[in-house]
C-alpha cells in the first residue's frame, strides 16, 4: 500500500483506538474487543461482517488479535469505506417499517420483540440497555424521530 498522508492519518487513528484496549502493552487485544474498536472508528458493520473480519485477523483461535494483522485489514476497511454509516433517512424508514401505523413512536415491548427475535438478535442484557437508553420515561415510548437526530448529535459533541 502506498504511504500517502491519508493512509498515515488513518493508521494513526487505528493505532490509537487499538491501544485503548491493549492492556498488556504488547500490541495485542482480546478478540472480543475488536468490534468495539471497529465501531469506534466510525464503521457500521453487521455482526456477520465482524465475524468475517475476526476470522481474518485472529491469531489461530488464541483469543487475541495482534496489531500487525489488524492494521492492514482495518486500513483497507477505512480506505474503501466498507461499512459506511447509515444515513438518517434509512434509519427513519427502518423504524417506520416496524411502526406499521407510522405513529412516529413505538412501545418499548414492540421494539423489544423485533430486536430479540429478528435479524442479529439482541441478548436480554443488550435489550435492557437499549430500553434504558431509548425509552422516554415520562411517556414510556420510544419516540424514534427525535432520538435519531439526538443520538447522532451526542456522539459528535
Amino acid at each position, binding site marked *: 500500500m502506498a504511504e500517502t498522508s491519508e493512509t498515515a492519518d488513518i493508521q494513526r487513528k487505528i493505532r490509537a483506538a487499538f491501544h*485503548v484496549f491493549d492492556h*498488556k*502493552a504488547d500490541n495485542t487485544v482480546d478478540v472480543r474487543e475488536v468490534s468495539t474498536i471497529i*465501531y469506534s472508528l466510525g464503521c457500521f458493520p453487521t*455482526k456477520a461482517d465482524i465475524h468475517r473480519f475476526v476470522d481474518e485477523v485472529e491469531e489461530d483461535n488464541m483469543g487475541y488479535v495482534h496489531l500487525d494483522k489488524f492494521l492492514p485489514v482495518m486500513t483497507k476497511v477505512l480506505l474503501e469505506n466498507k461499512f459506511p454509516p447509515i444515513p438518517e433517512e434509512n*434509519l427513519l424508514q427502518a423504524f417506520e417499517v416496524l411502526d406499521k401505523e407510522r405513529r412516529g413512536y413505538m412501545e418499548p415491548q414492540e421494539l423489544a420483540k423485533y430486536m430479540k427475535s*429478528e*435479524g442479529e438478535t439482541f441478548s436480554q442484557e443488550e435489550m435492557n440497555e437499549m430500553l434504558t437508553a431509548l425509552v422516554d420515561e415520562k411517556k414510556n415510548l420510544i419516540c424514534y424521530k427525535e432520538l435519531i437526530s439526538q443520538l447522532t448529535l*451526542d*456522539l459528535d459533541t
Partner: protein
Amino acid sequence: EPCGTPISIGFSYFFSYSLAIRAALLIQRWYRQYVARLEMRRRCTWNIFQSIEYAGEQDQIKLYSFFGFLMDHFTPARNLISHIFRENEICRDTEWERYFCYKDIEVPDSYTGPHLTFPMTFCGVSKLVEAFKQKQQLHARYVLQILGETWRLLRILPNINHVSVCQTKEITICGDLHGQLEDLLLIFYKNGLPSSEKPYIFNGDFVDRGKSSLEILLILFGFLLVYPNDLHLNRGNHEDHIVNLRYGFTKEILGKYRVHGKKILKLLQKIFSWLPLATVINDKVLVVHGGISNSTDLNVVSRVDRHRVRRPSDPLSVCFVSIKLKRSQGRRRVRSLTNHSSALPQRNSLPRRSLQNSSISHQLSSSVEDELKRRRRLAGFDQTYKNANGSDSDSDPDFAEAPEANGHDWKQVRYVNLLWSDPMPQNGCISNEVRGGGCYWGPDVTEEVLGRHNLQLLIRSHECKQDGYEFCHNRRVLTIFSASNYYEVGSNRGAYIRMGADLVPHFIQYQASRTCRDLTLRQSVGWTERSALRALREQLFVHKSDLIRAYREFDPHHTGKISMRHWASATETVLKLGLPWRVLRSQLVSRTHYGMVDYQQWIKELSITEPKLEVSDTSILETMYKNHSNLETIFRIIDTDHSGLISLEEFRQTWKLLSSHLKMEISDKAITDLAHSIDFNKDGSIDINEFMEAFRLVDLSAHG
C-alpha cells in the same frame, strides 16, 4: 396493496416480512455502533482517571523517598519529620489504656447525637447506623469507648481468620469503601445488617478519600464487638496513619473532633496495626486486601507479629524497595534514589512494556550502586548482604537472604505484599514501583500459591473496577470493589459478593447517588468524561511553565505555534501520564489553525480561577498548585500536636523542606511574603485547612 391471488399474497407477505428483518438488522447495527462508541469514550475517560490517580501515588512515593533520604543523611530538617518514624511502643499497653481513657470526658446536655451503652448490642449498633444516616456525629467520649473496646478485641484475634460457610449460612464479602458511607448503607439495605446468620467480610480500605471514614469504622467496629465471630475485617493499605495524612482521613478526624482528635488518631493508629491480615473461607478461599507474591506462605504470615511490622510507607521500607529493584537491574529501569523524576517508571510502562532506555539505566546504575552502599551502611545492614550483581533471578521482590538488622525482619516484606500487590497478565513476579510497595504477580504465581495451600480462589480488592468486580488469572483471582462512583459520579459501579457452601461467588452491583441512577448511559458517560477533562485541565494548568518551556523547544523561531504532533509529544514529556494526547487534543484545545496549536493563547485560556491571595512571586504559586498534596502532607507531619495550626517558623521550615525535595530555589523573601499575605490568627499561627483551601483550584469552565 397486493391483489388477492394466493401466490401474490404469499409473496407480499414474504416481502414485507423480509423488509422487517432488514429494518431490524439496520436498527441493531446502528444501536450497537452507538453503544460501542460510548464504551470507547468510557474506557478512555477511565484511563485518564487512573493515570492521574497513579501519578498522585508516585508523587507520594517520591516524597517519602525524600524523607528517607533526609533520615539517612541526618540533616537538620530530619528533626521535623523524625517523630513519625520513631518506634513509639516503649510504653506498655496499660499506660496507653490510661491515656485513651474516655471516662473523664463529659457528654454535655446539649449533645443531640446518639448515646451508647456498653457492652454493645445489636440494637445499639443499629441505632448508631440510623444516627449516621441522619448525619449526626458521635460524641468523642463514645468514639474513644468504642475504639478502646475494639483495640482490646483485635489484640486477641489471629493474623488470619478462618471462617466456614454452610448450606444455611452464606457469607457476604465487601471490598474498598473509602469513606463512602452511602455505599455501606446501600449494601446493608440490599443485603441486611451483619448478624450471626449474616456474616460479613470487609476487605480493607475503609477510610480515606470519602467524607465519612470514621462513621464507617465505627459501624464496622460496632458490629465487630457484637458479632466477633461473624464480622471479619482485613487490613487494607489505607489502614495506615501515614497514608491517612495525605489522603484525607487525618483531616477528617481533626475537623470533626477538634479537642480529642489527636487522641482518637493515636488510638486508631494502634487499632490499624492490630487489624487482621487475611481471612480464609472453608480452607478454600483466601480473602486479602492487595494480593500475594511468589513467596507468600500463610503459615509464616500467621506467625508474624503483625502489630510490629513496618509500614510500607516507612522510608526505611522505601529503602527496601530500591534495593529490590537493584537486584533486577538489567531488566527494568532503576528507580532513582535522588528524585531524578525521569527515572521513575510510569504506571502504564510497568510491568507491560519491555525495558526502554537500557543505556540510561546503566549510566544511573553506578551512582545508584554507591548510593545503595551508603544507605545500607547507614541502615546498619550486614556486609554479608548479597550484592545484586550476582543475582540472576528474574523477579524476586522478597530477598530471603537479607539478615535481620535493626529489627527489619525480612518476613515483613511478605506482609507488605498482602496489602499492596496487584495482579498482572504476564507470568512472573516483579516489584510494584508505582505503589511503592508490594509486587505485580502473574497467573503462574497464582496457580503456584493457591496450589501450595490447597486453595481454589483468591478474593482481593485494592483496585477500582468499572463493574465493581473483575476476574483474572483464569478466574482464580477475583477483585471486588465496593466504592461506587469512585473517581466521579457515574465512573463505576460498586459490588459485593454472596457466597454459599458451594463457594461460587454471586455478585450484586449498585451505584449510590440518586443523580447517577437517573442518568441515562450516554449522560453518565458524558458527565464522567467532563469531570476527567476538568481533572486533566487542572494538571495542565499546574504545569504551565514546564509546558511552555517544552513547547518552545519545538518552536525555535518563536512563532507561538507548534504542530499537533509536537504538542502531543511535549505534553506527554511534561505530564508523564501515558495518555493518548493526540486523541485528547480535540477535547482540550478548542481551536487549531491549519493543524497548528497556538500554545501561548491556549495556556492563557485554560480557565482556572486564581487564588484569592495576592502574591508577588507567581512561580511560588505554581509550585503550590503542583505540590498541593505534598505541602499538605508535610504541614500535617510538622503539626505534631495535631492542632491544625502551625507557626510562621514551621511554615518556613515546610517550604524549605519542599524546596529541598523539589531541588528548587525558593527565596526566603518569597516565603515571607506568602506568609504575610495570609491573615494570621492573633497568636501568629496559620490554619492549615484555610491555607490549603485558599490554593485549591476551581475550574471555571465547570460552571459554564
